[in-house]
Structure formats: C-alpha cells, structure tokens
C-alpha cells in the first residue's frame, strides 16, 4: 500500500513550530515513517514548483502567519491539493506575533525596514531585482482564505496538542479518516485547570498593577491577585500550563478559549472589573486612572497573538465599511 503523502508548507515562520514538531523525537519519526514527505523545506529538499506539480496530498500542514500575497497563494494551493488541511500554530490560525504589524500597516512596515539606522539614507526605492510579493495591510488568519480541517493552536503548539496531532496522523495512516472540523487541545480557559486557583474561592483582590520585574512572584498564588496580568481567563487550555508551573503568567499563546471572538476585549472587561474593586470609592476616577496608566501597551498585552483575527482590527482595516 502506498504511503500517504504529507506536505508541510510555510507562511511567515520563526522556526519554532518546526522545533516543536522535531522535539517530539521518536514519537514523530515513528509516525513519519508511515508517510511520504513530499514537501517540508526544513527537512527535505524540494522546491516550490514541485509542490505545484503534485496533484494530491493526504495531509497538508500549513505553518506560519499569512502576511503576503504569496502566503495566501500557498494556503490556497495547499488547500486545493490536500485531502486534510491542518492549520498548525497560532500564527496560522490567529495571525500570531507577526500580526502585530497590523498596527502599522504595510507601508509603514516597509518604511521601518528601509529606513533603519544602518541603511544609507539615499536608498529611497528598493532595487527592482525581483518581483516581490505584496505585503498585506495586516497579517490574516488562514480561516479568512481557506477552510482547514484540523486546528493545532499554540505558539508553538504544546506537547499535548502535538501528541493529539500525531494520533490523528497515525490514525489516518491506518485508514481512519478524521471527521469534520477538529480543534485540538481543550477548549476551556486556562483558569479551569490552573493550580493557582484558591480553594477558598474568595474574591480576586487586584489592588495594583505590577510588571514582572517589579515584584517577586509568589509560586502558588493567582497572578491576578499579585497584580500581574495573566491572560488565563480567556486563553484556551491547549497545553499543560508550563508557563504557570514555571512561575510566569499566561500570555495567551494558545489563542481564545471556547467561542470567544475577541480575546482582547473580553480580557479588557474582566481586567477592568477586577482592578481595585475594593478601593473604587476611596480612589475615585482620579486614583483609578493613576493605576490604569501603568498599563502602557494594551494591545501588546491583550492581542499579542490574535490581533489579525480580532474584531478590533476590523475597525482599522475598514472591514465594517466593506472597504
């Protein structure tokens, strides 16, 4: 029986997702033995044109943010060739860190790149050496381009998500096809599994805002109670909470939990509701503002991984006006 074909295709990557897969070690190689890898730039030496010539792939894995017209082309290509398309990593599904460039827009991003201090100021136009793909106004989620079958969130996807993916691959190789849309990793928010949730379930006393370097983080206490912003309440628990266990707050790299359509707005509301609740009448608006002004980069905190797929970015892109 012919081995099923596997192709792994990149958008704008950092390499982390490759490392995550490769870190699986023997577990990965066992599965991959059952597959014929027809495309994976980090591992096998095939060119893009060869990918275009392949008529069909069983499993296509798209990794990385879609930031240019080429990325979109590739996603469409992969979808058209793949029986099963896997959207791998938060960048692919939600836009990820590259998505933050949406704050600047394509023109300013290119200007930033061109006019760095190390570049000569005389260079105003890029030499027309090659036809470069068009940089999109904002990175975009693969969902806006094609419809994947399987989603593996995470930056990079955690061991548990990866193992779940390997199970799917293993099953597929044995002839068991995955049905419908599969979102790997538990959909519930991190707080559901978090060991720092106090058993006495009293109120969260968030009487200040502190950045990580401003205090000694207590090991088994809820981060919000220590004044540190933790995205746990809105983030998908698609991991074993390694950050929390290593005394760092969640930054939301798994993307939104459940059906939340804008992680940042939900967390904003939760945060506003928690902050200085007992001190409201004493501090009044002035005092509250003073503490809230300690939050300098709200988008960086609330939308670090999900800006392109948020509702907020639609305002900037003029999506709501059908532009």
């Amino acid at each position, binding site marked *: 029986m012919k081995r099923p074909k596997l192709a792994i295709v990149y958008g704008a990557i950092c390499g982390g997702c490759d490392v995550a897969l490769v870190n699986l070690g023997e577990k990965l190689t066992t599965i991959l033995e059952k597959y014929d890898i027809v495309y994976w730039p980090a591992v096998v030496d095939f060119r893009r044109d060869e990918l275009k010539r392949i008529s069909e792939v069983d499993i296509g894995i798209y990794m990385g943010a879609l930031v240019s017209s080429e990325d979109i082309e590739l996603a469409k290509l992969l979808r058209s060739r793949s029986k099963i398309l896997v959207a791998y990593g938060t960048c692919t599904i939600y836009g990820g860190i590259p998505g933050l460039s949406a704050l600047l827009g394509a023109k300013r991003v290119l200007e930033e790149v061109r006019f760095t201090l190390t570049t000569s100021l005389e260079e105003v136009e890029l030499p027309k050496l090659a036809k470069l793909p068009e940089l999109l106004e904002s990175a975009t989620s693969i969902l806006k381009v094609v419809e994947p079958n399987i989603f593996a969130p995470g930056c990079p996807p955690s061991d548990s998500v990866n193992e779940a993916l390997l199970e799917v691959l293993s099953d597929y190789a044995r002839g068991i096809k995955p049905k419908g849309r599969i979102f790997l990793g538990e959909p519930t*928010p991190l*707080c559901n599994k978090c060991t720092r949730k106090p058993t006495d379930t*009293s*109120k*969260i006393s968030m009487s200040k805002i502190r950045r990580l370097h401003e205090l000694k983080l207590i090991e088994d206490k809820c981060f919000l109670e220590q004044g540190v912003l933790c995205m746990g309440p809105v983030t998908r628990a698609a991991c074993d909470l390694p950050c929390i266990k290593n005394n760092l707050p969640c930054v939301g790299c798994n993307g939104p*939990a459940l059906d939340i359509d804008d992680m940042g707005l*939900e967390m904003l509301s*939760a945060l506003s*509701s928690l902050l200085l609740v007992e001190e409201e009448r004493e501090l009044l608006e002035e005092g509250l503002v003073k503490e809230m002004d300690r939050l300098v980069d709200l988008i960086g905190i609330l939308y670090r991984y999900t800006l392109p797929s948020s509702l907020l970015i639609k305002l900037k892109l003029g999506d709501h006006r059908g532009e």
Partner: protein
Amino acid sequence: MRVGVFICHCGRNIADTVDIKKVIEDILKQPHVVCAIDYVYLCAEPGQQIIVDSIRKEKLDAIVVAACTPTLHYETFARAIERGGLNRYMLEMVSIRELVSWVHKDRVEATDKAIRIIRGAIAKVLDNKAYEPIKSRVVKKCLVIGGGIAGITVALDVANAGIPVVLIEKSPTIGGKMAMLSETFPTLDCAQCILTPKMAEVYKHPLIEVHTLSEVVDVSGHLGNFRVKILKRPRKVKIELCRLCGLCERVCPVRVPREFDRGLSERKAIYLPFPQAIPTAYVVDENNCTRCRLCLKVCPTGAIDLDEKSIVVEEEVGAIVIATGYDLYPAERLREYGYGLYKDVVDSLQFERMLSSTGPTEGTIIRPSDKREVKRITFIQCAGSRDEAHLKYCSKICCMYTAKHALLFKERVPDGEVTIFYIDIRAAGKGYEEFIKRVQEEYMINYVRGKASKVYQDVDGDMVVIGFDTLTGERIEVRSDLVVLAVGIIPQMSRELASKLRVPLDEYGFVQEIHPKLRPVELSIPGIFVCGTAHAPKDISESVMQASATAAKVVNLLSKGEITKEPIIAEVDENICSGCRVCVTTCPYGAIEIIDDKAKVNEMLCEGCGICEASCPVDAIKLRNWKEEQLMNVVRAVLGGR
C-alpha cells in the same frame, strides 16, 4: 417566534411628529413580525383589548409596545399581555414619545429614529424567555444587635407586630447609654423614668428573647435566612435565683472602677451594673474575679456558679438589625485639654453621672480630686469634633446636652458661674432653639464663641482654661473648679463584626446606609438594617424614630413568611464557566459564590444589574433577557441600513 408590534399615537403627542403609517410599513417587513397595529391611546381599555385580542388571533409569542416611557405604563401593558395568556417578560416596551416625538421636530428624522428604536426592541424580544417570580421562604424571626434605646425600640415594635425577636447585648444589662443620663433635652424628662419601663417591657415580652453578655461571632446565609452564631459569656449568677440581697458584693475583696459611672466610683468583682439593670441580677466580672469564693459562702440561694462557661448558641433569623450605639472618643487624645491627666477634667457622660441622683455623688457636683464643692464650671464644646486632627464630623448632640448640663448645674448651684466655649450652636430640633435661648437668658450662662486652647491645673488647685473669644477678639482665661469636655461620639461597631456581617462602614466607622433619602435604614446587604447612633450621631428622639422606621422595614420583610422577587437575575452556564472568580469579585451584592468550581448565583441576592455578564471573560454568566447576544442584535438592528 411570532411578534406583534403595537404603536401608540398618544393622541397627537406621537402621531404629530412620527409618521405612524411609514413606521408600520417598515415594521411589517421585519422578520418574525406578524402584525403591526397602531391605536390612538394604547394604554386605555380599548387599546389594551386590541393587544389582548391580537395575541389570541395572531397566536403571538412576544409583544413590542412603542408608546410613552415604560416608567409610566410598563405595568399596564405587562398585565394586558398576561390577560392575553402570555408571560409578562415576553414584552418589550420602548418610548417613542419622550425619546423621539417630544424632542425632535423634523418628521423624517423622527420617523427614522422611531423605526430604529422599534427594530431594536424586536431584536431583543426575539430572545426573551418567560420567567416566573422567585419566591423564597423567610425565617420569621429578627435579630437585634444592641440593647440600647434604639435596639429596645425596634425589638418592641417588631415583637408587637407578632414577629419573634432575639435581642443581644454585649454588656450585662440592656439600657445602653441612655440609662446613664440624668435628664434628657429639651423636656428634661428623667432618662431612667422613660427608659426603664421599656426595658422591663422588652424583658417580659413573650416574643422577645434577651441575651446579655452576648456577641455575634459569625454570620452566614442571606436575606430571609441568616444563620448567626452568638457567644454567650457566663454571668456566673443564676438570674432566677438572685434576690439582689447584695451580701456577695459586701464580702467581695476586689475593687475596680465602675463602668456605669465611667470610673467615678468603684464596684466589686461581683456587682449589679445599676439599680434598674435588666436582667435584675448580679454579675461576676470574670476578668477581675480572684476566685476567692467568699461570695459563694454568703449567697442565701446558691445562685452563684463560678464555673459557668461561655456557650455558643446558633439562631436562624430572617433579618438582622444593627443598633450597636456609640462610645465617646478617647478624650486623652485631646492632649491640650488634660483629660486623664487632671482629675477635675471630666467628659460629658461622667458629668451626667455626677448630675444623676443615683450617681456616685448623689447629684451633688463636687471635684473628683479633693471633693470640694463646684461653684465655677467650664464646658468645652466640640472636644474632638469638627476637628481635622480628630473627628471631622459634628457629633450633633453636644450643643444641646451642654446647654442642658449648664441648666441643671445652675438649678443646683444658683450662684454658680458657668462658661461654655463653643464654635457654633446647633439646635435644629423641635423646641431646641427655644431651649438654648432659655438657657442663655434665664440661667445667665456665659457663652464664649471661641476654641479653648489649653486646660491646666494651677498650683492652688483651680482649673484654668485658656481660650480665645472671637466676638471680642480677646484672649481669655477662665478659672473654674471643674472642666467638662463635650467629647465627640464614635461608633461602637467593630470593623471585625462589620466584615463578618459584610456591612459597609463609612470612613468614620459608622454603618453606611444604601441611600440617605430613599433608603435610610437599609444597607447594601439586603436583610440587614441599621438604626440609632451606630448609623450616625443623633439624639434619643431621632434614634427612636429611626428604630421605628427599621421595625417597619423588618415587619414588611418578614410578616408574610415569604418574599417574592423579580426573576430577571443572572444565571450561569456551567458548561462554560471555568471558576475564574471574576464575577464573584465584581458583583456589588456578593450574590455569586463558587461551588464545586463553578459560579452559582444566589437568587435572593442578585439584583439584575448585569455587571457580571459584562465582566465574564467567557460569557458564561448571563443576565436573563439582557444577554450579550440580545444586546448585540439590538445594536445591529438600530444601526442597520443607513
């Protein structure tokens, strides 16, 4: 879902500005709208009948009424649709009068706006659900914390309405501060004469249980169903056996300052707090008793039991009244006045004891230091009150009682010299201004407008008060035999007890009412009330008034044995809830708890504000009929189609 929309002309109030025909035309095109009917006065009988008939005829599931403000007629239309067989919560009512036709002149604009508002109402009502009012049984029993005049008044009023009361008092006798007073202003009634009959009535009342030497140590539960733990300290004397013979007191070797006289006299370790104390029995001061057991030997009835222990009693009550009263500000902190340093500087309550015919000096005014008769007396008002460094507020009663003190002194010592240092005279009550006038004129009291800056004792034993007379602009020195400080009053409610009861305190420690005019005896915790000086400085007459007001609220709450509540409250989808506690933290009523890792709303405490839904990071908790999806649909509907 079949929606019926009813639009009122309100005579010409709406119809003159809003093009009703155009509205109907547009509304009929909206999905789910089965009928859109207009009428001249919907609130009138025929108008309501149209709605009732349409419900039946068109088999409507939900109704939208566009008319005047819901504040006026929501109830009218809710009842109308109930007559039509629908649940009242399937009604959405919007104002196109106050919010549209009465404020906009342009017909086109007004019509457009009316259409948008009605579209919004339709969008909301589509997801409304039917609900029944929430009923809860309440325990027909009231707990009153504090046995002073306020606590006694509430207890009597509530018990006389047929509701059992548990009255707890932390000292060995009820009566509070009022029992210490000689006469009360402005009528100069003898305090004990008006108080002791009430004390007796409370103690004898079949529906009132009095527990002295008792304090609340724990509270749980909520409105209608509180579980209270009461610590009863041991009296060590059996009330029913004590004959008040006083033999025990005679043999007791211990002498300590008597609290009732504020240290002006002494008592034994086994003592009667004051002659009219209720319960009428001796009590052992377990902190000072040396256990010499001499009293046991002489007691003729064997009433004494030195081994009695504290016990904790549990009570279930439906309402709790806080009547914990006041104390005087620690006057030693007013360093310039020398209280505690000089024996001949006393506070107002000590002076009351001196004036009292059953007090330590049997009504004669003598200096505590050398027992010399007092001929010259100086009163200092605002001692601690209205002072940034001590109490910022006005203690309200001092102007009146100081005037009373001056009058009573002059009656006993007609040739006495009285000086009163004051900043303002606050005499706003009924007959109060006349009382002050009388004191000033008839009794020839020397009122000096200015603050006293220092009090000291001269070598010859005279008390010297140095002050400033602002009306003459001169520094003055007044020599007297006795100085009385009208010390400011502070609340007795401890922050510990307040936090157990979840009762909010203001910055000064007084119990915070929910609204000074709309709900002056209720607190943000439903089922707990406050009256008397625990709430704010006030005199006896006001305490009694407030206590009766509180009693009315308690009776209203408990008399039917059950309470009914609007069902528009929050509810939790346990499949989504992650137990993150954001809602628990943000609910102003503490109505949400985490049980088994999921949020649970206490039906009786939820007031339906929706703050929780807006705060929930995963939208697991929703306010009935005000869900996020509904409001989003409303927003889309009102903005749709430019």
